[in-house]
């Protein structure tokens, strides 16, 4: 691949990278900084791009790594928890939903547009859970594609994703309670 072809291919993906950065940061100014950082890094290491591979996925990987570095700078430190036991997380999520069915919250939530509440809730998720949800649920990548973007095994993608979905459902239950739909106390996270 020539340098001109590389430039053309990655620059054509800037809208995708910006949307992804917006999903990660939920802030236009931070997203702009992240896109700029992503492209600087991409152009500095353009030789590492494999011709024929997916430029969008490659840029998402760089963008997500730059996002993590920005969080590290902001927080000084961060904990990237590698979770296992995806089936337990999947069941935990369903069990949480079962409680919402039991108290009527699920019925009320099912009749509402959950997207605005979920968009806020995604912004409150910590890493690595936020990236997992954004890459798979918001951007629509498969587990295999997410594994490549996030740089972790597929099992870790599943585990993080299911844990993130559970956290989001818990936040929905909070949202329903705050909106006066239910007075049932929030279940502790296990």
């Amino acid at each position: 691949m020539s340098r001109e072809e590389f430039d053309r291919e990655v620059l054509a993906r800037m809208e995708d990278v910006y949307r992804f950065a917006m999903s990660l940061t939920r802030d236009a100014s931070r997203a702009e900084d992240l896109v700029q950082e992503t492209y600087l890094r991409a152009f500095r290491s353009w030789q590492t791009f494999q011709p024929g591979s997916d430029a969008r996925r490659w840029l998402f990987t760089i963008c997500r790594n730059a996002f993590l570095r920005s969080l590290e700078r902001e927080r000084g430190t961060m904990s990237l928890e590698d979770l296992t036991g995806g089936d337990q997380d999947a069941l935990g999520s369903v069990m949480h939903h079962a409680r919402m069915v039991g108290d009527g919250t699920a019925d009320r939530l099912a009749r509402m547009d959950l997207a605005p509440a979920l968009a806020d809730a995604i912004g409150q998720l910590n890493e690595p859970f936020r990236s997992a949800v954004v890459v798979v649920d918001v951007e629509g990548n498969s587990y295999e594609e997410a594994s490549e973007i996030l740089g972790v095994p597929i099992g870790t993608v599943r585990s993080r994703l299911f844990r993130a979905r559970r956290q989001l459902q818990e936040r929905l239950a909070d949202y329903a309670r705050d909106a006066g739909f239910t007075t049932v106390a929030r279940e502790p996270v296990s």
Partner: protein
Amino acid sequence: MSKPTCDCTTAMAQLWDYLDEELTEERYEMVKEHLANCAHCLPHAEFAQGFLSALGRCRHAGQMPEGVRHAVMDALKREGLV
């Protein structure tokens, strides 16, 4: 040969994989069959499907401001990368 079947716990443990279409064809059909015949599990699956649909609608819909492209190109030029 009869179709493989599963119980509620197995179906619910695979619900996310099922909705994400990440199961093998055999497992997918097994969970699908279970959901079609289980009044207990179906509401969970329907709620989870609505939940995932709502997450899909969280994708940022706005256009990228043109200033972003200019800022990126300026930064690349400053660094001598284009």
